[in-house]
């Protein structure tokens, strides 16, 4: 690791001793905020770093300052790099990196909305997290903000939609309450006939104040809240939270628990991918395939229920391990059911790709080029469908993944078909992973003994490659070892801009299927 610290120091042109080792797999570097743009360029060009999160914390009680943090994945070094800089509360501003690193775009605006730290030079410094009726000068994540009471509604238009004008050009507003059973968000299409000229998004309708809520919870309860960040990623987020706490508290997770966690995470991937494949079929009106996929997905969640007592895998992860052991009977049941699933899934997938009426609809729409995905900092399945070979399970192995054989499927098309193919190929890999893990589980306890308290004034990063992409949780404790900041990043936050980017040139009737092929979480994004 010291070797990695030296590599990083050299690439960033900073003294070697300034790059500190944090928890395993984490390098920390204290910088000045004014250096962010230069450093970000070095990290991305010279270290092939990928920005996974950017956030602030309120450290005024101790240092009298806010802090800004950037989390970069350095896949080649198998380590994360956390850059952090103090921000003066008297003049809360930092130079923006969004113009050159678009992945920072929404993050910086969220920091502005919730901490009042201005991203100077941001190409579009308007509200992202706050709606128009939020009063000025009220920053919800600052420590002196009373989060447990309602805030009066203000009037204003802080985020006007960009007008789209011209002969025969009009706007189509959609949402926040949609026609189907999906989450709320507002889409505004600028269209000329059917072709879309421009798509604007307004999200954060389901902002529940999760990060603020964490600060009031005992750390042992945090895992329940993490499960409710995005209901379809209960395991992914619970695990990312647990990882962060375990690393912060030096809690050793026994090998059996690590193996069971892999089982849970891959089961979550399989059921979501299956359900998405069905939903893509629904959105092109291929009802036979859609209803078969739904039935297949129902059989999967019923299997979860039989083995773990929960359909959507809630209540399975705990800090230090898992909530329940996987007994031999459950293991055998899983193996039998998964074998049946494999055959049925192959059948279903054959039905889809052999139907010209289906492939006609999925070949081409919503193409995200490799370059665009790279520039926008897209992650997870959406990135891998656009030729970007990144997966935290391989690049920063967590749980039992280091000892498992699997490949990371990558597709080049970047369209709906590519995102469909990625899902199918990942299911194949997940089944292979489950095969290996379920063969024999390590004979150790399935949960660690937990300390009474966490170390005071410590911080750590937890990460997981969940089914949609990387989930990261950065956790910090106060003087008493209680949670003082939990930053949650769902892959959706990084990927929503991809949808905006690909829509122009497509037609409105293809929007549902393109949107579904990304299947981003509103709740995960809005928190």
């Amino acid at each position, binding site marked *: 690791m010291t070797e990695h610290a030296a590599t990083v120091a050299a690439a960033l042109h900073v003294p070697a001793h300034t790059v500190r080792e944090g928890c395993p797999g984490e390098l920390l570097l204290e910088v000045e905020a004014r250096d962010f743009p230069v450093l970000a360029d070095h990290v991305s060009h010279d270290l092939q770093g990928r920005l996974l999160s950017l956030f602030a914390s309120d450290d005024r009680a101790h240092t009298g300052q806010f802090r800004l943090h950037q989390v970069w994945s350095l896949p080649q070094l198998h380590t994360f790099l956390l850059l952090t800089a103090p921000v003066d509360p008297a003049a809360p501003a930092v130079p923006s990196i969004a113009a050159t690193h678009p992945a920072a775009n929404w993050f910086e605006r969220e920091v502005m909305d919730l901490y009042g730290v201005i991203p100077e030079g941001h190409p579009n410094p308007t509200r992202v997290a706050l709606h128009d009726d939020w009063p000025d000068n009220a920053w919800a994540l600052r420590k002196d903000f009373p989060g447990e009471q309602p805030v009066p509604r203000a009037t204003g238009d802080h985020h006007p939609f960009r007008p789209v004008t011209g002969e025969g050009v009009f706007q189509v507003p959609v949402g926040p309450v949609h026609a189907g059973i*999906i989450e*709320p968000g507002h889409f505004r299409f600028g269209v000329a006939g059917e072709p879309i000229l421009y798509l604007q998004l307004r999200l954060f309708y*389901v*902002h*529940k104040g999760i990060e*603020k809520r964490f600060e009031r919870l005992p750390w042992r309860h945090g895992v329940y809240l993490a499960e409710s960040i995005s209901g379809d990623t209960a395991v992914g987020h619970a695990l990312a939270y647990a990882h962060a706490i375990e690393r912060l508290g030096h809690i050793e997770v026994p090998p059996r628990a690590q193996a069971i966690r892999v089982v849970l995470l891959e089961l979550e991937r399989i059921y979501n991918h299956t359900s998405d494949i069905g939903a893509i079929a629904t959105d092109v009106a291929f009802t036979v395939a859609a209803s078969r996929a739904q039935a297949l997905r129902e059989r999967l969640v019923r299997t979860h229920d039989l083995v773990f007592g929960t359909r959507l895998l809630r*209540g399975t992860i705990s800090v230090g391990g898992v909530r329940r052991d996987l007994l031999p009977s459950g293991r055998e049941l899983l193996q039998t059911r998964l074998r049946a699933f494999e055959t049925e899934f192959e059948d279903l997938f054959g039905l889809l790709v052999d139907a010209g009426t289906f492939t006609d609809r999925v070949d081409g729409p919503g193409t995200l080029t490799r370059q665009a995905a790279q520039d926008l900092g897209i992650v997870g399945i959406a990135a891998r469908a656009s030729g970007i070979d990144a997966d935290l399970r391989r690049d920063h192995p967590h749980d039992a993944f280091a000892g498992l054989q699997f490949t990371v499927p990558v597709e080049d098309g970047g369209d709906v078909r590519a995102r469909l193919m990625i899902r199918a190929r990942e299911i194949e890999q997940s089944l292979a992973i489950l095969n290996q893990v379920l063969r024999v589980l390590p004979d150790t306890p399935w949960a660690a003994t937990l300390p009474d308290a966490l170390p005071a004034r410590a911080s750590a990063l937890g990460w997981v490659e969940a089914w949609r992409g990387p989930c990261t949780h950065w956790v910090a404790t106060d003087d008493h070892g209680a949670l003082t900041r939990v930053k949650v990043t769902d892959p959706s936050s990084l990927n929503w801009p991809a949808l905006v980017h690909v829509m122009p040139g497509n037609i409105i009737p293809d929007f549902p299927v393109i949107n579904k092929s990304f299947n981003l979480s509103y709740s995960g994004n809005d928190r």
Partner: protein
Amino acid sequence: MLGILTKSLRTGTLTEAGPFGGQASFGFPVMDFTRCVACDACTRACPTGAIRAEAVTPVLAHVLTHVSLSYAACIQCRACVTACPEQAISVSPDIEVAAYSRDQLARTASFDVNPVTGRGTYRQVELAPGLSLADAAAQLKARILGRLGRSLHVRQVDAGSCNGCELEIAATANPYYDLERFGIHFVASPRHADALLVTGPVTRNMEVALRKTYEATPEPRVVVAVGACGCSGGLFGEGTYAAIGGVDRVLPVDVYIPGCPPRPQAILNGLLVAMGVREARVNR
């Protein structure tokens, strides 16, 4: 095409004749108040405040304490079951739980607590305020009778959910549950709807949209709150800067379906309760 037909014929009917009556390994916790000593092990373990204890009248010799368990806020995490040192909390396999008010989902008992030992002695189960389940059922029926009894058009509104409830609501339409056979349809607009199926702790940012959706729904209309968050704000609390809380903080709610998330059978059951076809039950 031939392949599709053969496969469909071979698959046959997946729809379950009776989707109800199934038992889950974990429905809701059930408290045996006669074994409870009013210690604070479960209230500390509960992440949502579904179990509460409060001293009502401190008297010289003893303290009268109320212990209550409400399914409205329960996320079925089982933490209380393992935490109870007296094994007073067990597990009910019943999942088809619904009610007409928040109060009907709660059960409260009073205890005399010895101030020296801190140990409570069970006194009695307190009468729940408001209407009984049967009276509330009759009232709802009287309001909608003849108008909504045989079919129900439902507009689902996510007013702040984590999307877990949406996954299970969507599952009610899959071939196993097939809610359409009960005359229930999900419709695309509130203007076509008889019922709103609302999830989430209503967020500040969804309140206006939820109210407008309600106003766009023609009378007679029923509102069904789904999930721990929809019933009570759940993990996200009520009255925070971002979450207003349970749906009844914003709209009059006719039926509550607790759970995190409620299973498809529970949602189906709740919808049939809203139609007046079934009566709500809270077993414990």
